[in-house]
């Protein structure tokens, strides 16, 4: 059902944990639906120098979180904003159709953390004007 890449990230997830003095924290998802992602960012001079995550969810939710953290680590905010759910899914060699919402959650978790950073620092990040971290990616 899952690609080798998904299973590899599920077995050995990268960047699991918390950052105590994080500059931006984003939490998306809903325990009722069975998945929550929490993303912690450490940002210096507009660059994401460290990232950690915690996820409650299925195998692909954990793998998507892990992959997303790898894709934004060391990147500028602008570059991180370009990490789409499709890019996360492609980097995992694809996800089953019913699991695509996991990659959407990963994209949202990054954006939610960036939004938190922007609010704390009173700045605006291009592309986050209309972002709503509470939006439900599930197609119920």
């Amino acid at each position, binding site marked *: 059902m899952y690609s080798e890449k998904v299973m590899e990230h599920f077995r050995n997830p990268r960047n699991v944990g918390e950052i105590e003095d994080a500059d931006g924290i984003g939490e998306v998802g809903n325990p009722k*639906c*069975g*998945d929550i992602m929490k993303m912690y960012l450490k940002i210096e001079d507009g660059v994401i120098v460290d990232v950690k995550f915690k996820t409650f969810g299925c195998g692909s939710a954990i793998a998507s979180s892990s992959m997303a953290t790898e894709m934004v680590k060391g990147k500028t905010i602008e570059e991180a904003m370009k990490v789409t759910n499709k890019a996360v899914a492609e980097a995992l060699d694809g996800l089953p159709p019913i699991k695509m919402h996991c990659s959407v959650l990963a994209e949202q978790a990054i954006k939610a953390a960036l939004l938190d950073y922007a609010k704390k620092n009173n700045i605006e990040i291009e592309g986050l004007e209309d972002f709503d971290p509470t939006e439900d990616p599930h197609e119920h």
Partner: protein
Amino acid sequence: MDKLIYMDNSATTPVKKEVLETMLPYFSEKFGNPSSVYSLGSQSKVAVEESREKIAKAIGAKPKEIFFTAGGSEADNWAIKGIAYANKEKGNHIITSKIEHHGILHTCEYLEKQGFKVTYLDVDEYGVVDLEQLKDSINDETILISIMYANNEIGTIQPVEEIGQIAKEKGIYFHTDAVQAVGHIKIDVNKLNIDMLSMAAHKFYGPKGIGALYIRQGVKIDPLISGGGQERNRRAGTENVPGIVGMGKAIELAYKDIEEKNQKLIYLRERLIKGILDNIDHVRLNGHPTNRLPGNVNVCFEFIEGESLLLSLDMEGIAASSGSACTSGTLDPSHVLLAIGLPHEIAHGSLRLSLGDFNTEEEVDYVVEKLVDIVARLRAMSPLYEKVKEGK
């Protein structure tokens, strides 16, 4: 451990060697159609009837009350639709429960679209149907009560005898989906006042694709499959002879030494439950503590999700299942766990371990040991567990 630890015997069981051996000749040299007049055909006919006798004997029925089907779902569909259509002049109301297998639930939903009325009974925290609600739900239009013998997810055994008594007093047909019970619990259809009973061979070490519906003599029921005159004009289609032969052998073996087998299974079940509850916190046992299937264990681990649990177990060579959203291909957790009152987020973390004749104490201990590590690892990753640790 090098070999696979199979703890999903409620999903299906392996065909036992003795069963397979009795089946094999009926694929090749004894391939005749039971309806043919020559001796090759009558040889198959005899084999089918011998199997029917074994199945009837196992549940206290007459051979002519056993009708072969392609499995449990067909038997369930036949019982519900067959009774509904044959008795619609008498009434249009069916009573079932909220925790039935989808073979029953989806069939009832289909009938609702055809104009039938269906009452879905509630269950208590252990998954036992409410008998008072059952009595109160019966009206002049009620033609059928269908309540499962034992639940496939949480293992709870229903008060079948009481339900049979209520149905008999009211003159309403009583069907029970006994797919999880046949071969594992002693059943006497007369003592329990059961009018129809569904079973499937692959749940008791027989082959897949073969099952049966017991229909008490005199019950008014329409056929589901029309065509030739097989099964005394009630179920058309050339008989699955190897499957039928295998089912007969399997049921015979299942009820041989059943007390000893169940004693062993219950010992393993209790050891597994105790091992989990003693070594892992924030865990709950689902289903009735004692009145449950001998091999069924169903637990919920809070703060983790069922599919990641199953994948992790699979990585350790352990096959189990979950009523979780992700495995069933929908985002909703198990209807059974919701019916016993679990909140969604806890229902997502369920695990069913179903033991069978081939499991050992060593395997049970190994599974507990691995579960402790897996649950700890997944919880370390879970933002929900972090909140609990912080006391939020």
